[in-house]
């Protein structure tokens, strides 16, 4: 990248470098302060143990669907902060990144070292100001709840600083607003992240109990290892489930020339629109499932004869057509994949033929009653139906379809959603050919782990 010809890139690199340098300065200063206060001999050995732990935990991430990963790294970070204070904890964080990120570009490494130091320093400062203390973390004080607020605010500070620094970097590279990036990539994982804080606290307390130390931390970690493997198994099952439903629903469509690839293309358009609208990862996930399954209610022997019949459908046939989203949602419910999304995919499937003005079917819902996902799916479905099977004159067809969608925006379709689709087309980001691949390829993490790695699937 040449200087002068692309100044924004230089700005981004300057930001990464600045965070890195500031982080290192803070680290040196913190360590200096700490040295002046006097250091116990055993400290190096203990810090080494926790460094090993941090690296171990970082090397064993759980792979989430769609290529993102997560670790319990924050629990170890938080324990380090409480046991050693910010200076040594930041040192451990930097050292663990030296191992974990050794294959990343140097600038990214420096940035991540900087951001983790700043997160530790900020969290440590807040924690101390609120009366928190290090080293002698007596069970009695914690039990009596005196440290509660300090611990909570410290944890929040760590997450906020780290996620904001990373969001700024992503926002610069992708030309998006910082708030937007943060909302998409980090907001949804905040509760999960903070749930790890009690873990870290407990680990620190167990570690500091006289006569227990490392042995007790080891005992504490065994169930975590067990849980990690079970969790990994669950995630693999999720992936297998996705693979299976995709393959089989494709097969159900594949042998009918009129429906071949329909669901796949609808899903792709819906996901592209969803990303354009800034939907967070979990909602994109719902959209993907709903896109794949939205027409599954059409699986019946007499469907083709009804649809292909010349002339208008009679009352009974019309009823069958109107019922296919209901039937589809009933089936989607049976294939629901994640415990915490109970019924959401089914609701989107049920509403994909509803219209904004309430003139759609089966329930005649409109306006605010329609979820954003359902509106997106409705537009994607209509767009695919209008542009399918006409590979020749592709461009004109698409332009006409978009114009038609534009005419119906506000009555039948959500103008915001139609606008997003038009923007995608104008930027040339809409792929119209079906792919041979079964499902979207995993995305590479944008910037390094903790908490960035978990957010990598977040459409960033």
């Amino acid at each position, binding site marked *: 990248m040449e200087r002068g010809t692309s100044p924004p890139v230089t700005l981004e690199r300057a930001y990464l470098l600045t965070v890195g340098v500031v982080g290192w300065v803070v680290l040196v200063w913190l360590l200096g302060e700490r040295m002046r206060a006097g250091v116990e001999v055993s400290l190096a050995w203990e810090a080494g143990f926790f460094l090993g732990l941090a690296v171990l935990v970082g090397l064993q991430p759980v792979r989430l669907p769609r290529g993102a990963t997560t670790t319990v790294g924050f629990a170890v970070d938080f324990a380090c902060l409480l046991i050693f204070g910010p200076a040594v904890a930041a040192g451990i964080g930097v050292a663990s990144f030296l191992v974990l990120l050794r294959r990343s570009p140097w600038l990214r490494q420096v940035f991540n070292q900087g951001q983790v130091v700043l997160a530790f320093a900020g969290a440590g400062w807040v924690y101390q100001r609120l009366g928190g203390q290090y080293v002698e973390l007596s069970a009695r004080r914690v039990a009596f709840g005196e440290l509660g607020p300090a611990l909570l605010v410290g944890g929040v500070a760590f997450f906020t600083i780290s996620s904001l620094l990373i969001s700024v970097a992503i926002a610069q590279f992708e030309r998006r607003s910082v708030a937007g990036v943060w909302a998409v990539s980090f907001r949804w994982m905040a509760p999960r992240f903070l749930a790890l804080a009690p873990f870290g606290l407990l680990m620190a307390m167990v570690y500091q109990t006289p006569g227990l130390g490392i042995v007790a931390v080891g005992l504490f970690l065994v169930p975590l290892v067990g849980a990690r493997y079970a969790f990994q198994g669950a995630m693999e099952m999720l992936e297998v*489930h996705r693979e299976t439903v995709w393959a089989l629903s494709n097969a159900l469509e594949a042998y009918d020339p009129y429906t071949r690839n329909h669901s796949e293309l609808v899903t792709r358009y819906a996901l592209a629109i969803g990303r354009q609208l800034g939907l967070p990862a979990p909602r994109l996930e719902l959209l993907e499932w709903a896109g794949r399954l939205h027409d599954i209610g059409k699986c019946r022997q007499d469907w083709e004869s009804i649809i292909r019949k010349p002339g208008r459908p009679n009352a009974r046939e019309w009823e069958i057509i109107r019922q296919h989203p209901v039937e589809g949602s009933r089936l989607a419910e049976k294939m629901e994949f994640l415990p915490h999304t109970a019924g959401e995919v089914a609701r989107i499937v049920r509403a994909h033929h509803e219209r904004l003005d309430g003139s759609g079917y089966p329930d005649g819902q409109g306006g605010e009653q329609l979820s954003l996902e359902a509106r997106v799916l409705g537009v994607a479905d209509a767009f695919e139906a209008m542009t399918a099977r006409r590979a020749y004159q592709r461009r004109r067809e698409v332009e006409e379809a978009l114009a038609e969608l534009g005419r119906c925006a506000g009555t039948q379709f959500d103008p915001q959603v139609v606008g997003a689709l038009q923007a995608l087309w104008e930027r040339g980001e809409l792929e119209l050919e079906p792919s041979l691949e079964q499902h979207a390829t995993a995305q590479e993490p944008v910037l390094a782990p903790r908490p960035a790695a978990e957010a990598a699937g977040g459409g960033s």
Partner: protein
Amino acid sequence: MRNRSWLRLYVGLTTAAGVGALLWTLRRWGAVELGGWELALFIGLAGVLDVMVVPVAAGGAMAASFAVFFAGILSLGATATAWVAALAVVWSEGMVRRRPLRRVGFNAGHSVLSLLTAGWVYGALGGRIGEVELGSQLPAVVGAAGTLWALETAWVAVAVRLERGGRLGRRLRSSLGPVLAWDGALASVGLLLALLYQSWWQLVGPASWQGAALLAAAVFIPCGLLYYAYRLQGSLREVYAQSLRTLGALLEAKVEGSQPGHGEQVARLAARLAEQLELPPEQVEQIRYAGYLHDIGKVGVPSALLQRSRERFGGEPETLRLHAQIGESILAPIRFLQPAAQMVKAHHERWDGLGYPQGLRQRDIPLGARVLALANAYVGMTHSAHPPLSPHQALHRLLQAAGSRFDPKLTELLGRCLVESGEVSPETAGQVEFAAR
């Protein structure tokens, strides 16, 4: 059936022995010096963890209360812990989960007996109650945990064996491993609890709710996470099976001339046969999946052909024969379903090598595919044929074709299965077999 009464006897004896052992410990209760706080803490912890139950694939279930039972042996001694366990089980299973009384009695009974034995092992190996220390007492600690694990698992495995049949050794082997991973993690939590009980309980001040809350957090956080992860895995497996069933049914709706519910019936019968063969749980699962999906390749065969082949009695046109291979190619990209895909491909192979698509013979045909072929034929005869055959007639036909179309041993097993479930009476089955030879 005879097994039922053995099971009842076994459950009754376990309950009675548990109650007897509890009463017997009362003679030594004087030696136990415990306050109400300590007992309440352990009963509360064990009661809550006893609700965290995870099923074992080979039958039975395992509860997270193992951690507290083990900690109890080390901290309170087996005598007090036996009472803790009995009360916790009665409270959580009987009063919260409202399970049948026989089960509550059985679970409380075998817990008490295993605990007392493990406590004896702990003492015999030099363990000191309330003064756990990992150097010299390591053998005692490991011995107690191992005893508790082995006894609990064996106790349940015997009950599963009596309930479902099969060989005890195989039942035991297939459950000891998975239970070890779970109990090992929980034993680690239990040991941690025992160690923390010695220090924190004194540090914070015994008999205080703050101390109890701290210990509870130290136990519930790791146990809860472990339980959550196991449950998630289990529930996703269930959802998966449900999904396959739905997709199989959808396929039936799409293919002309197929019988609604056919795939599900084939899956159920095939899985039943597989269980009778005592195949490992994963293989039974794959056979069930193959049952749901065995005709999925028919979506690739034009429906007019399917219609015609139904009208023409007997031979199937060449194109229809493709469905086995198409089915395999649909399932091929799903790595997890590889075994099932092979079964789907070979479910029209014949024992004598005259089947399709490859003309495999005898044991070259995957076992699952042989099971599937038999189940498919039986369900087809009893449900789709015009007119449907009675179970007895169908079995008769199948036995006639044993050795030519079907694996003779499997066909006999199916006969035994049908007799056992009462679908075919033993006398007619005898006649059938006679007639078949």
